[in-house]
C-alpha cells in the first residue's frame, strides 16, 4: 500500500512573527523555517505504518518555493522513500494545494493520504478535507489513532468533549492531531541517506492546475494589544479585586 504525505514549510512554531508596518503582510524574511508540526506527525505515522508492515512506500509532497526541498529532505530523513516538489513562487491557498495534491494522487494512486490537520501559518484547517472532496474519498480528520486493516481504516478522532471512532473505506484521507504520535528525532545517518533519495520537481502547469489565489488580502494588522495588569501581593487582595474591581465573581 502506498501512502502520500503532503508537508508544508512554515515559520518555526517558536518564532513570533511581526506584522509589516505597511500592513501588507507578516515579515518572514530571515526567520527560522521548519516543517509544519502536524505534518511531521503525519510523516511519523506513515513511517510507523511502514514499520508495522502495513505500508510499502511513502511519498512526501510539498507545494511551494524551491526552499521547500529542505522540508522534503527532512521528511525523507524521518523515513519517506521519495519526494515530489510542486514548485511555484505564487502564494498558494488551500484550494489550490488540494487541486495540486489531487493531480498527484491521480497519478500515484495511493490508498492513504495523511496530512497535518492545520498549518500553523495560515491556520486554515482546510486542505485535507478539500482534497477528500475533490477525490470523492472519505475523510477522518483530527486523528489520535490510526488502525489499518484490509480495505478499511479505523480512526479515533479528537472531537469536542472527547473522542469519536469512525471507520473509513480505503482509499481515504487522514489528518493528524497532536496526540497521534511523537515524531522521532532525525539522526545524522538518516539525513545523509535522505540526500540520496529521489526528489522530483514538477510545476503546477505540468499538472494542469490553476493556482491563482481566490482570496485577496486587503491588509494585515496587529491584533489589539492587551496591556499588562498588576501583580497583587496575596490571595486576599486578588479575591477582593475580582469581587470589587473586575466584578467577575
Amino acid at each position, binding site marked *: 500500500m502506498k501512502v502520500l504525505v503532503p508537508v508544508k514549510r512554515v515559520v518555526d*512554531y517558536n518564532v513570533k512573527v511581526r506584522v509589516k508596518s505597511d500592513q501588507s503582510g507578516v515579515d518572514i524574511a530571515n526567520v527560522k523555517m521548519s516543517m509544519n508540526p502536524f505534518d511531521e506527525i503525519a510523516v511519523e505515522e506513515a513511517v510507523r505504518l511502514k514499520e508495522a508492515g502495513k505500508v510499502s512506500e511513502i511519498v512526501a509532497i510539498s507545494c511551494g518555493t524551491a526552499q521547500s526541498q529542505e522540508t522534503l529532505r527532512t521528511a525523507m530523513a524521518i523515513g519517506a522513500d521519495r519526494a515530489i516538489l510542486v514548485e511555484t513562487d505564487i502564494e498558494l491557498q488551500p484550494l489550490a494545494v488540494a487541486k495540486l495534491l489531487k493531480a498527484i494522487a491521480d497519478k500515484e494512486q495511493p490508498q492513504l493520504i495523511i496530512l497535518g490537520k492545520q498549518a500553523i501559518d495560515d491556520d486554515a484547517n482546510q486542505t485535507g478535507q*478539500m482534497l477528500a472532496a475533490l477525490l470523492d474519498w472519505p475523510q477522518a480528520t483530527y486523528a489520535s489513532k490510526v488502525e489499518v486493516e484490509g480495505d478499511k481504516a479505523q480512526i479515533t478522532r479528537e472531537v469536542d468533549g472527547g473522542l*469519536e471512532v469512525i471507520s473509513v473505506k480505503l482509499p481515504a484521507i487522514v489528518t493528524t492531531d497532536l496526540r497521534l504520535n511523537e515524531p522521532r528525532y532525525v539522526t545524522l545517518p538518516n539525513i545523509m541517506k535522505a540526500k540520496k533519495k529521489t526528489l522530483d520537481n514538477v510545476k503546477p502547469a505540468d499538472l494542469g492546475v490553476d493556482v491563482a489565489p481566490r482570496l485577496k488580502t486587503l491588509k494585515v494588522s496587529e491584533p489589539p494589544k492587551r496591556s499588562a495588569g498588576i501583580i497583587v501581593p496575596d490571595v486576599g487582595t486578588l479575591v477582593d479585586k475580582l469581587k470589587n474591581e473586575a466584578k467577575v465573581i
Partner: protein
Amino acid sequence: MTALVIAEHDNVSLKGSTFNTITAATQCGGEVHVLIAGHNAGAAAQAAAKVAGVAKVLLAEGAQFADGLAENIAAQALSLAPSYSHILAPATAYGKNILPRVAAKLDVAQISEITKVVSPDTFERPFYAGNAIATVQSADAVKVITVRATAFEAAAAGGSATVESVSAVADSGKSSFVSRHIATSARPELAGAKVVVSGGRGLGSEENFKILEPLADKLGAAMGASRAAVDAGFVPNDWQVGQTGKVVAPDLYIAVGISGAIQHLAGMKDSKTIVAINKDAEAPIFSVADYGIVGDLFEIVPQLIKELG
C-alpha cells in the same frame, strides 16, 4: 442574498456555537436560513426556528445524519447550495470537518475562523496563532465561512421561522460511525464557559491537576490546559486552550502554572479578566494578565479556594 447556516446540534438542541454563527450570518446582509441535518431532529429544528434573525429552517432527516459524518452533511449542504450567497458553520471540530468539503466541491475558497464581517464579501480572520489579523476579500460567487464563536454575540431567542422538510441525500457509504467516548462532566463546556480554570506544565503531573478541581467547582468553571500539559499527558487533548486547541473568551480566565507560550495566549487573550498564578515573575503570561500572583501554585491555589469560602 441569503445565508445558510449549517447547525451543529445533538438532534434535540442546538450547540452554543450555532447561535454565534447565526449572528455572523445576519451580518452578511441577507436573510438567514438554518440547515438541521439529523436523525429524529425535529426538536433541534424547532429550537432553531425560535432563534431571532432566522427566516427559515430546513430539516433534512435520515439515519445517515445521526452521527455528523462529514461526507453526508457536506453532501446535504451542497444539494441546497445553489440558493445561497453565503454558507456558514461554527469553527468547531464539527464545522471545520465539514465545511472545506463544501467549498472544494463548489470550487470556492473557504474563509476560516472569521472574527468580523466587514462587508458581505470582506472578513477579518486571525492567522499565525492570532499574532496577525488579515482582512480578506472573496471574489467567489458563494462565500463559505467558518465562524469563531467567541468573536460574535449569541443570537437571542424570539424568532418564529417556518420549518421546511427537504429531501435528504443518500448515505455516501464510504465512512461509518463506530463509537463515541465523551467525558461526562457536571462542569460547563469549555468553549462557552463564563469562567475557565486552566493548568499548565507547572502542575507537574496528572495527579497534581486534581488540586484545580475544587477551585473550578467553587467558581462553576470549565477546566482547561496548556498544550504543554496536554503534551505531557496530564489531561485530555480536548482541554487544550490555544491556537491548536480551543479558543475561549470567558469573563474570568485563571491560568495556573502556565508560562504563556504564544500558542496558548492565542487561545485566551480575549478573556475579559485574566488571572495568572506562576512562580516565575518573568513568565509571559503576566504580560496579558489583569491580576498576577507570583508564587508557588501549590500554596496559592488552596489559599484561593479557602478565601472564596
